[in-house]
């Protein structure tokens, strides 16, 4: 994979800890995303990935630790984080359902435009120019994402996959330097997942660093330059796909560790033996279940 030559850090999270009462959802996590990088964040359900995202984007105020974007520490307010240059999507799609596709993207332009109430009421030439520029930029983004022909549809009427895409377009509208994607392929079929993969690469090629949470391992390991694995709020391992894939602790976190005399061991051995013989004798079309 090609990466840009300059690798200055875009995002530096140091010692991020989030406690909800007695529960520590995220414990002392450090993460760096360099410019031009796609970084993956994996972990079993409940590992604290989304909580960590919320800490990064200011939806939660981290109990400890700090988040810096291009060297400046971010205040824990979502709108300030976005205007600094970090945009995000949500795990469960949170579009403005009753606004049109174009309006959704225009809302994303909010931080990059300045027109307040007065200029809206007076409609001076500056307002018209800014509005036209916003629309042009939004249409560009819809073109990029492949939804330009549906600009006037209500967001709620889009099929699921396109809603995901639109959420990405809306996030891109704020001209971010870092894009946080929270499970962008959840519920997608393989073709759509492939398309999303291409889309993330295209976004990276625009010079936007990407941090992505995902459960689809093939997607993650195809896509990411680096992968971090979060387990029970702690960062277990970080490195290239091969390193993470080979790490026993990661496998253990997902599948559990075998122990002596565990109930069901015999059955597992039987199944494995049967599968081994079956695979040898016939060319089975059936893929092995995980």
């Amino acid at each position, binding site marked *: 994979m090609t990466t840009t030559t300059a690798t200055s850090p875009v995002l530096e999270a140091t010692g991020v800890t989030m406690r909800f009462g007695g529960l520590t959802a995220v414990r002392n996590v450090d993460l760096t995303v360099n410019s031009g990088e796609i970084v993956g964040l994996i972990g079993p359900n409940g590992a604290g990935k989304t909580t960590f995202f919320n800490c990064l*984007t200011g*939806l939660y105020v981290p109990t400890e630790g700090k988040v810096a974007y291009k060297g400046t520490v971010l205040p824990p307010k*979502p*709108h300030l984080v*976005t*205007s600094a240059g970090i*945009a*995000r999507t*949500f795990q469960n799609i*949170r*579009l*403005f*359902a*009753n*606004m049109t596709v174009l*309006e959704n993207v*225009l*809302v*994303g*332009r*909010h*931080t990059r*435009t300045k*027109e*307040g*109430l007065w200029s*809206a*009421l007076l*409609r001076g030439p500056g*307002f018209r120019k*800014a*509005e036209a520029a*916003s629309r042009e930029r939004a249409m560009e983004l819809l073109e990029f994402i492949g939804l330009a022909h*549906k600009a*006037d*549809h*209500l967001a*709620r*009427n*889009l*099929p699921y*996959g*396109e809603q995901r895409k639109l959420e990405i377009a*809306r*996030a891109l509208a*704020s001209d971010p330097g870092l894009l946080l994607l929270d499970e962008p*392929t*959840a*519920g*997608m*079929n*393989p*073709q*759509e*997942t492939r398309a999303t993969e291409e889309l993330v690469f295209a976004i990276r090629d625009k010079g936007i660093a990407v941090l992505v949470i995902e*459960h*689809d391992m093939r997607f993650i390991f195809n896509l990411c330059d680096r992968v971090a694995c979060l387990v029970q709020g702690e960062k277990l391992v970080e490195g290239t796909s091969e390193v993470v894939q080979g790490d026993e602790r990661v496998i253990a976190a997902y599948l559990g560790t075998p122990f002596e005399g565990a109930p069901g061991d015999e059955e597992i051995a039987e199944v494995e033996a049967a599968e081994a013989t079956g695979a040898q004798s016939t060319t089975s079309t059936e893929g092995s279940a*995980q």
Partner: protein
Amino acid sequence: MTTTAKTTPTTPDTPRGLIPLPQSAARVLIALGAIGTIGSTYMSWTWTSDFPGDLTYYGSPAGLQILDLVAGVLTLFYALTRWNIRGLNWLNPAGATAPVFLAAASAFTVSWFSALAIAIDLGGLVNLDPGAYLAAVASLIAILGALALPSPGNTAKAWVSKPDNIPPAGKLPAWGERLVITAATAVGLITFAYGIGVDPDASETFIGFLLLVVFGSWALLAAGLVERFSVLNARHKGFATSMAFLAAAIFPFVENNEHNANLGVNILVVATVALGLNIVVGLTGLLDLGYVAFLGVGAYAAALVSGSEFSRFSGIQFPFWAAMLTGMAASLIFGVLIGAPTLRLRGDYLAIVTLGFGEIFRITVNNLDGTSGPNITNGPNGISMIPDLEIFGFNLGSSHTIGSVTIGRFANYLLLMLIITAIVVLVFNRAADSRIGRSWIAIREDETAATAMGINGFRVKLIAFALGASLAGLAGTVSAHVGYSVNPAPYQFAGSVPPNSAFLLAAVVLGGMGTVGGPILGATLLYLLPEKLSFLKEYQLFAFGLALVILMRFRPEGIIANRRRQLEFHETEQADIPEQSLPDTTVGVTKAGA
């Protein structure tokens, strides 16, 4: 328009109506019934002039008869559309049954209501003259004929709803479209002027008017004409708006009556305030139950600087523009003061807190009388004898004669209020269609997502709150002068007399949230109905509640629906379903695992 190309709208197997009759007979029946209804209105309906409207004359329709005449003509026209008569097809583009049935229903309900009202009011069927019998029989024939038309569906709903197969409108030249808008505005003005002009004691006539308007406009809706008209309106938005305001400005000249002009001013005040509330509730989605307090702040501020001798500052008399700005500024400050601490709350919590603040305003004003607190507002007595406004030497309190028409005091204020309503409409439209308006709607849709898109939720909500407050204050300054006096009583949460917060909210919700026309129409209806249906007396609030329940059951998006909200509530009838599905997902594979 195509007439010859289109055959009769019946499907090949010719679905029969509810009454088995040949189609030609059905058509003839409707037409005969309609003609009979029209004819009956030129006859006497009762022997005595005791019944409101005096329906005793032969040869000249009056009161309910005029309404029945209109209903009969409507029915006749719709009956004629079943013959594919050239030049009438536009009335019923799909050639559907439902509009014909509804038109016949308007004649039927008006005729039968009139006959029953005469019989009941005057005590017996003996009071009915042949004309009334003819109207009842003829309109019954018309509706029976309509029932024999091909059935639009198996359910009762199909008989009264818009069919799906309405062909797209033929292209008109731009001037033609404007002509259509002008004509429709004129019809609207005539309808409104007639409705407001009905004698308050003639509740029967007003009910007949309501029946005609409801069924008549329902027929137009079912024919698809309302939809076509709204497309035209959207295409010529500026023209349509100016026509509407022109019509409203003509109103005092048409309806040259001080009482009705007074009604008009009050309707405009309430409508303007409702429009301001629409920014807060309809666009930003903040449920404000104490909104009427801002109207009160504006009214009190204007009264205090009006030079009234009951004002605490009786020596001060601001010119109108300064009083207007004072009222606006006072409401703005009050809005920010209330909004700043409360807007951190969401949903029900905000509603409860605003309800509380609204009541606090009223109670405070009640107590600032010199005994319970400092004397500022003169307590429950309020500030009376507010002098009339004078703008550029033009005294709004005295009558002026323009040509042959005398414009009285209330008509003057009506015209002034119209300008203010126009300003508020302009503010609403411009604010809604801008960066700030989009962020309001985004916050209404999903506040968390909106803040994640870089919107400072608190700031944007506060702007909406403050803007809504200052618009209400603006309307309040005029209302103080119109009503001669201000006192704390009307500025409560709920009451039988508008304005109160519940009334304003109902106007917005009934009319249609997030639209300009909705709150104006809602306020008009809510103000006019209790005024004209005086026989309801103590049941007014009950009837009001019943109407709300019925409307919310059948049209939850309000009378004038925002396109967005219409889709929100009627998901099965989506207008713009994406015409293409996902790219070839025919394999039917879903992601395994995860």
